[in-house]
């Protein structure tokens, strides 16, 4: 009762004990706005990932990205509605720093990793996202190519819905490849069209950003 009075005044919408409630008798966990949640174990996620890789082969990255894009769109609409209600004003009325903080809270409390936005290249039409402990990079083991296509899809869908523009997302570095953190670039699909090939050719994040600076859309 005491805690809920804080919840309506701002702060961290996703704070544990307030954000989720489990009805143990029914076996149902819901968020404070009634959205049902389920906890997925490492075993399940590894199995899910392997099944997609086995079934889809070379197309698996596209499948992961496509799933992520759809989920990301739903997530953005829910984030917009919940954050606006909780803070008593629309996202557009909130400072960018606060929106980024809420976004980081959203991802970290759901276990997707710790994310940070870098909007310093927005004049180039690029948003950079850094993710520490992204889920699939943590589960997949060492890899010679980025493995977080699901998360890249989520970012693409999320920011497309948030900005009402068709955006794409390319992963440019990955913890599974030995990089200290995973990095992503979000931008217009036309702008990023060549970036995936550059990453496949071995260019690092900074090199891809530099190449993209010369792309005109």
């Amino acid at each position: 009762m005491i805690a809920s009075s804080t919840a309506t005044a701002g702060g961290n919408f996703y704070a544990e004990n307030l954000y989720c409630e489990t009805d143990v008798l029914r076996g149902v966990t819901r968020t404070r706005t009634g959205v049902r949640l389920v906890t997925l174990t490492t075993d399940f996620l590894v199995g899910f990932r392997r099944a997609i890789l086995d079934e889809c082969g070379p197309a698996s990255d596209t499948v992961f990205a496509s799933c992520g894009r759809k989920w990301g769109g739903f997530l953005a609409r829910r984030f917009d509605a919940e954050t606006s209600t909780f803070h008593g004003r629309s996202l557009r009325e909130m400072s960018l720093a606060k929106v980024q903080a809420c976004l980081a809270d959203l991802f970290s409390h759901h276990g997707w990793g710790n994310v940070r936005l870098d909007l310093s290249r927005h004049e180039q039409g690029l948003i950079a996202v850094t993710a520490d402990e992204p889920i699939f990079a943590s589960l997949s083991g060492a890899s010679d190519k980025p493995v977080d296509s699901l998360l890249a899809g989520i970012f693409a869908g999320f920011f497309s819905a948030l900005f009402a523009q068709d955006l794409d997302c390319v992963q440019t570095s990955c913890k599974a490849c030995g990089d200290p953190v995973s990095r992503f670039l979000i931008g217009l699909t036309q702008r990023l069209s060549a970036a995936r090939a550059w990453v496949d050719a071995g260019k690092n994040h900074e090199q891809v950003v530099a190449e993209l600076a010369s792309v005109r859309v």
Partner: protein
Amino acid sequence: MQTVNSTDSVNMNSSHQKEVLDYAKSLPPRFKAARAVEEMEAEVATRTVKEWEQAHPELGAVADLGWPEAVADVRVVLRAAALGMLMDDTDYAETRSAITVRRALDFLDVPAGAVNDLFNVLANTARETLPPAAADLLYPYLSCLAASARPTVV
């Protein structure tokens, strides 16, 4: 309160019982302190942000964010600390509010030292502004914020 939570299906021994009884006895002054915080919340937050601004004139990005918003955020942190004090939970203010402020300041590239300094200034301002009994009760729940780790993304 924390003692009750931590017993986790174990019968409470006499030491636990004493801790809980002592906590129960401390509730009236804790409620009184929370009331004092509520009454002086705006003053403490405004003074905190002003003092922090003066100590860190280089933080232009925060000025762009808007000092009224900073004051509003500090008020939320202060309120969470008061609730943490009522529940005797030193993690409460961090997880309920300070982490979001920390992330917003991180986005603005405010150095970790300056962020921690905000929470130091808040703890000290509350101690100087609130009635002594309330200040003493609240201080541990604010001072711990300055020692909290920031989000791990580099």
